[in-house]
């Protein structure tokens, strides 16, 4: 039996095609360089503190081990979560894919009679394209996280997991607020404080009038049926406590076995994500509490390709991701392309291994190659996801181009015997003989034109190492 793959905002143009205009966008490059550089330095400082005490590696290992254990027992843990949350007064729904999840959420909102909802920043709802699906049903969803609001007002898409408007600078944001945000006028400056204040006023009215909120969750504790949202701005706390109805869309991999497991992740996540020792707001709720917060609590658990990912022994570690985005901030490829080049709501190194597994490799075959395998992502991952290992594994699974496949087969055949290998060396030297005097090549035909478009290519010298070794009598 094949396990169905996911759908939603997970596929775009082939990576090299989508990357090209972004690499050439000078403003984007400057914004990314500045922003990723700032977060990198903050993270390095607060992680450094824990490294000094010798606690960082044990914490990472604990995070990895808890996630690995969770994946081994996922079906049982999910059922336990459902039982506990239901016992506490929540209603748990199960969604196979994006379409099913969107239908469930839209039906729940329609039943309240409301046409407007406020939203807490959530990758799961971005993944399934919930806002667009609700709009099609005449329901307006307002993003309340500052950066998500910016992206929404611009009619744009997020380009980073944690800071979705990383591709915009503050003057671009001021222009956007002036043009699109009600109650904003020409006196608005591009000071971050003024921009935040303008958004705060705009959002305050939404918080106070909203009857329905939609959120995701960072963690879902099986032992207690508790959901956890970790945030910085307080908008999440507003959405999670003020409305009458709260609908949370949660990927099945967000489960943690026990409440005590949070101790590990609450040390790993803020440090890796915003570069803070602790984030300003952590909200936890378990079903419904009489007279306190929403009286109607729904949890939509989504699969959307996660079971298919879980079935892959090497690739399943992508499900350990806690969406901190440390890998994006250190990735030299991400820093030069931004998130939109990845065509999925999950950009950067984690996106390059998660998106192709959620959608199936056929739909996303260029992403595993959008990396130099430099390993910077693996080095910072708080749950030790070996991203380079999964990238190589997915390259193995990826459909092969016939020309490349025969070239690789031929190269392996040549390398399989000393006689053929030495003949190959001779042929390479003789073939490049006409260019030897020049020292290097400036132009080559496709596919090597990709190299010589910006780099010279040296020509093999007259004598190979082995010929020298033989001539000199074992190099003497």
């Amino acid at each position: 039996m094949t396990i169905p793959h996911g759908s939603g905002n997970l596929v775009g143009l082939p990576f090299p095609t989508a990357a090209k205009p972004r690499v050439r966008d000078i403003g984007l490059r400057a914004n990314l360089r500045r922003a990723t550089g700032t977060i990198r330095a903050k993270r390095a400082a607060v992680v450094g503190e824990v490294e000094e005490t010798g606690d960082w590696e044990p914490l990472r290992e604990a995070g990895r081990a808890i996630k690995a254990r969770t994946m081994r027992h996922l079906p049982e843990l999910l059922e336990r979560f459902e039982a506990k949350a239901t016992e506490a007064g929540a209603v748990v729904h199960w969604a196979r894919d994006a379409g099913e999840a969107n239908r469930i959420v839209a039906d729940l909102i329609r039943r309240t009679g409301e046409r407007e909802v406020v939203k807490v920043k959530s990758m799961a709802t971005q993944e399934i394209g919930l806002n667009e699906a609700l709009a099609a049903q005449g329901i307006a969803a307002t993003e309340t996280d500052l950066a998500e609001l910016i992206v929404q007002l611009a009619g744009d898409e997020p380009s980073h997991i944690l800071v979705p408007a990383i591709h915009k600078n503050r003057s671009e944001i001021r222009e956007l607020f002036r043009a699109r945000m009600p109650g904003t006028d020409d006196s608005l400056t591009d000071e971050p404080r003024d921009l935040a204040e303008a958004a705060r006023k705009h959002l305050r009215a939404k918080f106070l009038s909203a009857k329905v909120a939609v959120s995701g969750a960072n963690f879902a504790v099986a032992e207690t049926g508790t959901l956890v949202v970790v945030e910085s701005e307080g908008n999440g706390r507003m959405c999670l406590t003020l409305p009458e109805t709260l609908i949370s869309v949660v990927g099945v991999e967000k489960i943690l076995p026990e409440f005590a497991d949070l101790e590990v992740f609450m040390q790993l996540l803020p440090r890796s994500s915003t570069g803070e020792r602790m984030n300003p707001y952590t909200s936890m709720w378990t079903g419904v509490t009489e007279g306190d917060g929403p009286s109607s609590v729904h949890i939509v658990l989504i699969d959307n390709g996660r079971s298919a990912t879980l079935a892959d022994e090497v690739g399943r570690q992508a499900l350990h991701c806690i969406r901190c985005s440390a890998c994006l901030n250190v990735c030299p490829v991400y820093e030069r392309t931004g998130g939109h080049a990845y065509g999925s709501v999950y950009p950067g190194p984690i996106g390059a291994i998660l998106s192709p597994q959620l959608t199936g490799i056929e739909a996303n075959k260029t992403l595993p190659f959008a990396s130099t395998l430099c390993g910077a992502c693996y080095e910072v991952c708080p749950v030790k996801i070996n991203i380079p290992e999964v990238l190589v594994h997915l390259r193995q699974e990826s459909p092969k181009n016939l020309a490349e496949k025969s070239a690789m087969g031929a190269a392996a055949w040549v390398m399989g015997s000393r006689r053929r290998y030495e003949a190959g060396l001779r042929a390479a030297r003789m073939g490049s003989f006409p260019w030897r005097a020049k020292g290097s090549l400036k132009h080559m035909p496709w596919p090597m034109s990709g190299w010589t478009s910006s780099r010279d290519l040296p020509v093999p010298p007259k004598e190979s190492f082995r010929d020298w070794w033989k001539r000199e009598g074992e190099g003497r």
Partner: protein
Amino acid sequence: MRIALFITCVNDLMFPETGKAVVRLLRGLGHEVDFPLEQTCCGQMHANTGYREEAVPLVRRFADVFGSYDAVVSPSGSCAAMVRDSYPGLVPRDDRVASVSSRTYELSELLVDVLGVTDTGAYFPHRVTYHPTCHGLRMLGLGDKPLSLLRGVRGIELAELPAAEECCGFGGTFAVKNAEVSTAMLTDKCRNALSTDAEVLAAADNSCLTHIGGGLSRMRAGMRVMHYAEILAAREHDLGPSAGHVDEGTLR
């Protein structure tokens, strides 16, 4: 101790001087070094591009060729990492492969960890900046072993490379499949290298150096790249790194 040189296919064809430098260096330190002629390629390109089946016979071949030596040394952080880090996963439950994999070293590991060398007796009166290549740095964990050896070279002036640990953008077939992004990464690497005012950029991997050198050469930057083994093997009577090299960026 029986030491075998694993030159790597790229060095065999393109950069024989690096292999000669390793041989000179080890013999100068009083060690025997052999070059088994049956060696070909470690299979890294195949394995990393998604051709595991093509790589597996090359892994077995490597174990056949190098199995009888006490230590295998390679002047390539990337190929040494392939053998030590990836071989056991490619051919699991094979004692021969596991054993040769654990006895394979990048040059600075053999010198510092196994042979206890701190001074190679080198003389190289030039300004040099060192780029720690990704697989050596992160897969092998070379740390500052190559740099510590360079610090012992007489006459050398070492300039710190800004953002040294950032990838140069090579990544094997990445340089061709994603040429735009690769070039953007290379440009930043070259900009940082040039800011040091060094004559030479050194590293532990000629494949990365081909990439950086190819960029410097295209820019007519007046800086060349060099494998650090060649610096460690440089002696007083040698010609300087720029003598006779009119094409910047090329390796010789």
